[in-house]
């Protein structure tokens, strides 16, 4: 029987515990109309089901996650030393093949040592499966039985179930913290590994980026160069300069028109249009940028006499990214403008200012902190954006301010470095995590600062 089978039996046992305990609780004596027990029968049943199910399923989940490694180590320890694989990659390959043969994914082993190990592995898997499954069943029986015996009329089942639910809810909310820690720890760990090979100083201030590490030791330039300044510049150039030149005026003017001029019916049509623009997946924008916009930009550049124009220009990627950001800027500006008290606007209009004068001289200055906060959030969105730059910006790490040339960004390099076949702990792949760390820190700081600005501004008018 597989672990899944045991899990099904445990579910059945939990249901059984629920039904029997509930029936038992329903039969608690006492004259009709008086309180016959502290908790309603449902709670007695639920508590029994919890006791039967939770400890047993924890055992099974624990084994499902970690069991395979334990069995693999035991298998390695048990097979004769002569056929035991070495450590590291060799051992990994051995175990992968072993598992594939055992699960039937491979019809037969290529390595005869693996073929010899398969029966040992199978025997151990079967043995442990019985032990763990049996242990889980035993726990389920003990838990359910204990709860059944314990369900007296004065037993506070409801209190127990309530506190169990509270614990489960609290545990669920810890997932968010765990994710944050997971991100920070994994990025830090791999980055430290990277910085033990390349100095952080070179990484942050170096202007040469060519992460190829040589296949042969004696190859020229075999160490690679990891100066990330061109990437940082490319990211800022595309995400914070070109994209914002497109997005800020268009987004801001859209928001102004929607909140100040458009009638209710026009808003009903125009607002969903912007939302659709926001809902288009980035890979679609990337495809559009690479196939439609980039060639057009290149032709335009050549027509005005710039011969060095690349077909992967920064302008194409940045402009399309700007279009993608428009709805974001627009909705942030919309919020900021709506938060300005109506009395200020009315006062300005009453003094005889035209609506546009009111907007330019009163509303926008009053909403400026909120708008700036929104723009900062938009910048952090843009520099973390990946697919558009992967598809439309190049891979060449140029340090140039010419928008018709090709630049590359942090995100595009992360994808470039981590897709493709290479061993995991080369400086090349590790550098992707260092880039990720920088990206994470920068976007985090931008967000914290922007949110603080927006919040302070909201409080000022509340």
């Amino acid at each position, binding site marked *: 029987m597989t672990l899944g089978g045991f899990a099904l039996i445990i579910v059945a046992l939990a249901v059984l515990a629920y039904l029997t305990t509930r029936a038992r609780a329903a039969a608690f004596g006492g004259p009709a109309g008086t309180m016959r027990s502290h908790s309603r029968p449902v709670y007695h049943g639920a508590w029994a089901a919890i006791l039967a199910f939770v400890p047993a399923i924890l055992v099974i989940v624990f084994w499902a996650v970690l069991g395979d490694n334990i069995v693999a180590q035991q298998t390695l320890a048990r097979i004769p030393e002569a056929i035991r694989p070495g450590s590291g990659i060799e051992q990994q390959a051995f175990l992968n093949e072993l598992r594939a043969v055992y699960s039937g994914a491979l019809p037969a082993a290529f390595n005869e040592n693996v073929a010899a190990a398969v029966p040992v592995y199978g025997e151990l898997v079967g043995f442990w499966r019985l032990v763990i499954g049996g242990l889980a069943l035993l726990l389920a029986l003990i838990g359910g039985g204990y709860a059944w015996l314990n369900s007296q009329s004065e037993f506070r089942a409801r209190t127990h179930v309530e506190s169990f639910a509270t614990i489960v809810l609290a545990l*669920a909310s810890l997932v968010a*913290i765990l994710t944050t820690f997971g991100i920070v720890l994994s990025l830090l760990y791999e980055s430290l590994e990277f910085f033990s090979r390349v100095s952080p100083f070179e990484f942050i201030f170096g202007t040469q980026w060519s992460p190829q590490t040589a296949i042969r030791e004696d190859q020229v330039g075999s160490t690679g160069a990891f100066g990330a300044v061109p990437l940082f510049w490319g990211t800022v150039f595309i995400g914070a300069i070109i994209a914002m030149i497109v997005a800020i005026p268009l987004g801001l003017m859209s928001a102004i028109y929607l909140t100040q001029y458009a009638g209710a019916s026009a808003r009903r049509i125009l607002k969903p249009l912007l939302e659709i623009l926001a809902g288009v*997946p980035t890979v679609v924008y990337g495809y559009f940028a690479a*196939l439609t916009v980039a060639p057009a930009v290149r032709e335009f550049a050549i027509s005005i006499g710039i011969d060095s124009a690349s077909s992967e220009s920064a302008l194409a990627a940045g402009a399309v990214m700007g279009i993608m950001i428009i709805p974001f800027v627009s909705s942030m500006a919309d919020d900021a403008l709506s938060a300005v008290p109506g009395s200020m606007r009315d006062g300005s209009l009453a003094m005889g200012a035209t609506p546009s004068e009111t*907007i330019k001289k009163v509303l926008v200055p009053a909403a400026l902190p909120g708008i700036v906060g929104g723009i900062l959030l938009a910048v952090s969105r843009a520099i973390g954006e990946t*697919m558009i730059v992967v598809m439309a910006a190049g891979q060449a790490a140029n340090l140039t301010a010419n928008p018709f040339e090709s630049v590359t960004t942090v995100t595009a390099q992360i994808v470039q470095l981590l897709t493709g076949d290479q061993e995991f702990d080369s400086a090349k792949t590790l550098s992707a995590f260092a880039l990720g760390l920088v990206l994470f820190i920068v976007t985090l700081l931008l967000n914290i600062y922007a949110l603080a600005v927006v919040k302070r501004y909201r409080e000022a008018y509340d």
Partner: protein
Amino acid sequence: MTDPSSPSDTGETLPERTPTEWHSNAMQRRIRRRYARERRFRFFGLAALVLAAGFLAFLLFTIVSDGWRGFQRAEVAVEVTYVEDELTAESGSLARADYRTLLRRDLREQFGTERVASEGAWLRLRERMEENPGLLGQTERVWVVASPEVDLMAKGDVDFTLPAERRVVDDEMVEDYRDLRESDRVRLAFNSGFLSRADSTSSELAGVWGALIGSILTILVTLAISFPIGVMTAVYLEEYAPKNRITDIIEVSINNLAAVPSIIFGLLGLAVFLNFFGMPRSAPLVGGLTLALMTLPVIVIAARVALQSVPPSIKDAALGVGASRLQVISHHVLPVALPGILTGTIIGVSRALGETAPLLLIGMRAFVSDIPEGVTQPATVLPVQIFLWSDEVGRGFIEKTSAAIMVLLAVLLSMNALAIYLRNKFERRW
């Protein structure tokens, strides 16, 4: 600017001044200028919106004008004789019959070349035989998938006036195609394979079904994890959490996670799920887990807003008649908040459905020509498929990419329509 103090408070006397001449020419000119400026500003606002809408229309137009042809394919009519001896010559049984050689021979006999039909054209013969085993020994005219070159010419993508070296197809192919046309043995038909097959190296055989199934499996994993955990987190934060430091940390990390670039989640998935836990690469399970962590904050934030909008009187009434906290939440608060939670979940999930970057990092960019059957098998998802096809050099893949984008957008639009429908149908104002 916000200073409300007026000159009269200070007790100063204003200097005498002449009354404004509202009807003087100078004043009229100024007012005209101001109104012109007003109209200009208003026009700029409208222009910005129209420009944004124009981009959207242009984007959709380019995609659709390329993509609709992806749903079509050229087919070539061949007279096929299902000769039993030839079919079974190699393998000895009809179940593993060799249709490929048979078709090749027929093609050569009738057209002088096999290049008019696709490499996978023989699949059609197998389908025919499976539908109707009585065909054995018979001859019939079958429409099989044409080769990419014929496909291009049939769709009018080849400029025959160009010299041969600047065309994608050589003169010989053009001659073959002209013969086909004259004998009326080529047609454009609905590309049913596009919606029923997985990826392939030849554009005329590639389909999105495999990627669509991969997307569905991935999203199911995402939903199964992020929805319960997200709702539980929101309930805990709104209804249970004491005001203390841990609660603050949870809130801060949720708000920050919502703004972390998606590619960072890809790095997390690579480092933790693949390298630390040793989960299989390219599997919807890992993709779903990674996207679940990304979607979680979106669901938590939406669910908290929905929970906050439940009027306290409902809770108080339920508590007043003796319901426990859990009963209040599960019997009263959650049912009322559910439409809002579901709307937020659908929006979060549809974002995850269009996500590409994190999935590239965990290996879902592998070439997968089978339709995945489980969450641990290698699979790809629609956005990644679009990315992979957009990299292909073959001319035939351009229309396939656009067609795949049309499928993706259709799925996303219908999900968003569902969210709007739910919001309008169930939303209650208190």
